[in-house]
Every structure is written in C-alpha cells, then in structure tokens.
C-alpha cells in the first residue's frame, strides 16, 4: 500500500511563507497544537490563518506568524478573550477579518463545494462588511429579488487537524461528541495534515466498528503525524480535558514584559517529547478531566 506518515517537522517544511492555513478544532478544543508548536519552532511566517480560534491563534499571533486572520472569535472559553490575540489586535499587528461563526463555515463550505461564493443574510447590516471590505452582495435571480451577502469561498492552501485515530493510509476518526468543522477545513484545503493520538496500520482492521467517526475521506488527508497529547493544552474529548492550569499561566505571561520569550523558552523551544514532560508528563495529561459546563 502507501504510507502518509511523516514528522511534524516535515509537515511544516511543506508549508510556505504567505500560505493560507486553516486550523481545525474550536476555541480550546481539539486543536492541532503539536503542529502549531512546530510552526513556532520554524521560520514559517506571513500566514493567513482561518480558525475558530483558541491558543493556536494566540500563539501564532504572539510569535508574529500571522499577517491576516479570518475568525469568528479567539477564546480560551473559561478565559473569554485569548490574551495574545488581544495583544496583537490592540497593537494593530494583524489584518483582522472578523466573521460571524456561521459565516466562517459557510465560506469553508463554498470552498469545499468549489463554488466562488454561497449566499446568506448573515453579515448584512453589520461591521462584518467593514472588516471585510472585499465582500460583495448578490441578488437573487428569482421573483423575490432579495439582496444577500455573497460569502466568498475560503480556499485554504493547507488545513491542520488533530484527531483521535489515524492510519498510514490517511483514514481518520474523531471520537468526541462534536466533530466541529474539521471536515470542512479539510474539504476547503488543497492539502490537510493531521496529528493523531493513536496511529494504526489500518483503521479498517483495527476500528471498523467506529467507521462512522470518520470525519472526512482519506483523499483529503495528505499527511499523518503521530502525536499523543498533540492537542494539549486544548482538550481532546472524551480522552482528556483542557489544561486550565497551563492556560492560566500562559495567559498570565501575556501581561508580563518578555512573557512570550519565557513561554517559548520554557515550552516551545525544546522538541515535543520534552514539551510533554515539562507540562507534567503522560500520566498527568491523561488525567486532565473533561470540562463541565
């Protein structure tokens, strides 16, 4: 057969400055953080990022990797505003294309369906139009003649996702209750790279009974990286919750001089195995409780 496994470093080496990257997950949930950290370790820059943002977006902003950002929010949930994103925004350092959450997925669907736009009322009469001056309206060709926002396709050069299981062929499964919009990030992207908690030789042989947890067919998956706890410090339900202790410390640094350098030195500069040790090791991470709402 064939084998799509590669290292996080090889994924990042395949990305180019100026690319448009989609990042799966939702806020502090199931983010491909091992790949984000690998980007932080690299020289990759000048990115356009499309995400339901959490610490992925915050860290990329803090590191100056983001030129342009399409987002509905950037939040750590229990910490409502991502602190590093806030700093970057208040400094005017990123071109902010703020969107309605539903509009963002509509743009991904347009890209997935390979149409230039999808119509909607959402965004009309709001400052979505001010923050996205390139957006146009379209008129219904039917008797209603209604004018709608033509949400443009958010075509991605690459999407990054974290999943529970993957195999060497690129089949993937997520086991949490909500797949978020990962499927649509993948379908909107030319290439998609996933990190996974568990790498199998063949998902059909190992986990056939869970095939309905397959969020997108493998033709959309270009590369697979084994990364146990690769979503940390975000959650990967139901396996582990987010690491609020870590996120609080990370947030605290945002108001300190040299805070980002400290975070990088302590958690990012060393490779991933050390990262996992520094945040407490496998036993602690596996025991992070799921959040209760």
């Amino acid at each position: 057969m064939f084998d799509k496994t590669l290292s996080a470093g090889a994924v990042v080496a395949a990305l180019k400055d100026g690319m448009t990257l989609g990042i799966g997950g939702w806020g502090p949930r199931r983010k491909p953080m091992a790949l984000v950290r690998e980007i932080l370790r690299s020289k990759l820059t000048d990115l356009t990022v499309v995400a339901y943002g959490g610490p992925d977006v915050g860290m990329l902003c803090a590191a100056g990797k983001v030129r342009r950002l399409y987002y509905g929010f950037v939040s750590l949930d229990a910490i409502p505003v991502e602190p590093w994103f806030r700093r970057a925004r208040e400094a005017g350092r990123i071109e902010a294309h703020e969107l309605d959450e539903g509009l963002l997925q509509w743009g991904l669907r347009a890209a997935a369906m390979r149409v230039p736009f999808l119509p909607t009322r959402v965004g009309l009469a709001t400052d979505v139009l001010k923050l996205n001056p390139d957006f146009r309206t379209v008129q219904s060709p039917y008797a209603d003649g209604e004018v709608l926002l033509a949400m443009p396709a958010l075509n991605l050069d690459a999407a990054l996702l974290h999943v529970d299981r993957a195999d060497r062929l690129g089949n993937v499964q997520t086991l949490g209750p909500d797949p978020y919009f990962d499927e649509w990030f993948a379908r909107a992207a030319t290439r998609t790279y996933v990190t996974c908690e568990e790498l199998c030789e063949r998902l059909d042989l190992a986990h056939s009974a869970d095939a309905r947890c397959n969020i997108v067919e493998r033709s959309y998956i270009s590369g697979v990286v084994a990364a146990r706890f690769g979503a940390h410090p975000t959650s990967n339900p139901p396996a582990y919750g987010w690491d609020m202790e870590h996120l609080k410390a990370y947030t605290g640094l945002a108001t300190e001089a040299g805070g980002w350098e400290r975070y990088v030195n302590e958690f990012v500069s060393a490779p991933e195995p050390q990262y996992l040790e520094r945040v407490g090791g496998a036993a602690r991470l596996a025991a992070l409780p799921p959040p209760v709402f």
Partner: protein
Amino acid sequence: MQDDYTLAELLIVAAAEAWRGNGEVLASGIGIVPRLGAGLAKLTHSPELMMTDAEAYLVEEPVPLGPRGTYVPRFSGYMSFARVFDCVWGGRRHVMIGPIQIDRFGQTNLSGIGDPFKPKVQMLGMRGLPGNSISHLNSMFVPNHGPRVFVAGEVDVVGGVGYNPARWPKGASDRHVDLRLIVTDLCVLDFGGKEHAIRVRSLHPNVTLEQVQAATGFPLASSGQLPTSAGPTAEQLALIRRLDPHGMRATVIKGNPSAFAPRATGKLP
C-alpha cells in the same frame, strides 16, 4: 418570606419571561442568568423549549450549573456546532447574550471597544451575533446597566443587527429580525416603542425611571405606570436552586444584593 430573594434571582425570573410563548425553539442562554432563565422557563411555563447540555446534545431536563456530582444528563437529541448553525439559520432559536455595547437601534457589540481595525480593547469577536440577530429571536442581558453599555451613538462594532435602516443595503431583508427583551440590573426593556425604539417594560424594586434613563445613553420610551419587575415565586426559587446547586448566581451582581436593596442614585460608571 416571598420577598427574600436576591437581585440575581429576580433577573433570572425576568430572563425566563423572554422565552414564554416562543413555541418550540432552541433556548440558548449564554451566561449564568440567561442560562438559568432558560432552564426556569422550560421547567415552568414553556416545557416545549429545547436546550443543550452546553456541549453537543439536547436534553429535556435543563442541566444544572457547575460540578454535577452523580447527576448524568440524558440526551434526547444531537446539537453539534454544525447543527447549531443549521438551527440558527432555520430560525427556530431564541438566544440571550450579554453584549458589551447596545445602541438605540438594538445593535449589539461583542467584538471590542474603539476602532475595529485597531481596537482599544479587543473582546471576543463577532461570535454568532450577525447570524443570531438576523435569523431568529434575540434577547440581551446586561448586569451593569450604564451608558458604557447603552451607548449614545452606534455601538463601536456592529455585530448583532438592529432596527437601523441606514445599515441595511437596498434589497436586503430584515424580515427575520425580532429583538425581544433586555434584562438589566435596573429594569426590563423591550423594543415596543415607536419604530422598535427601546422601551422600559418594568422597573426592578427601588429603581426609578429617571435612574434608568440617566444610566442610558439614549432616550428610552415608556408609557404610563410602569410595573415593578416580578421576583420569583417560592416554586420558582426552588427550581432556581435546583438548577444552580452551587449558587453561581451569587457571582453575577457585585455583592449579590437583595432585590430590595436600596440603589445608589445617578449610577454612572
């Protein structure tokens, strides 16, 4: 005895009224008071309301706030984020959120303060405001009624649409816009004034219309004798306690005052 309730508890009862008679909609209360209000509505006057476990499932019994002990929610349906948007765009939902700014048109802001291209204070972002406000019923919760929230001009960043004709492109349809209640720590407002102007509907105990107007950046409509906002009945209070077993509602209003505590006049932050 019946008067022995906090302002937060009164606000929950007021919030619950938003969902009365809506029919079978997804009741989304974002934040402690709205969520408890939605739960209270479902457990009393509006059992047809739908509600989530705040994650991905629908429940028929509102999930209590905070650590659950041995309580395990039971699921009647599925409501992933993807399905939430289908539900929103389909219109069968009523959400109550807490914007950082509201203007005379009912336009709302959750994005930030100042220039949206370089905000003085960046907040959450648009989140679902544009979609919610243009698709289905919307209400708002304001725990700190003042002119910083109820701004004199337009909100700094329009996230949620309102009744501002200047904002609507020619040919666009506002037919699904339906703003309902604004529950604040001073009063309950609605959009029943002329051309959907914001109107005082009831005043909380010991609050005067003058206080409310002074704390609001634009003129409020009102008519005749204003009722005093109803507090919880004993039954409602018992349900509120069941829905909030850890007393998280005590954190909503500073000092967790009684509903009948005297108010400082000329409240201006």
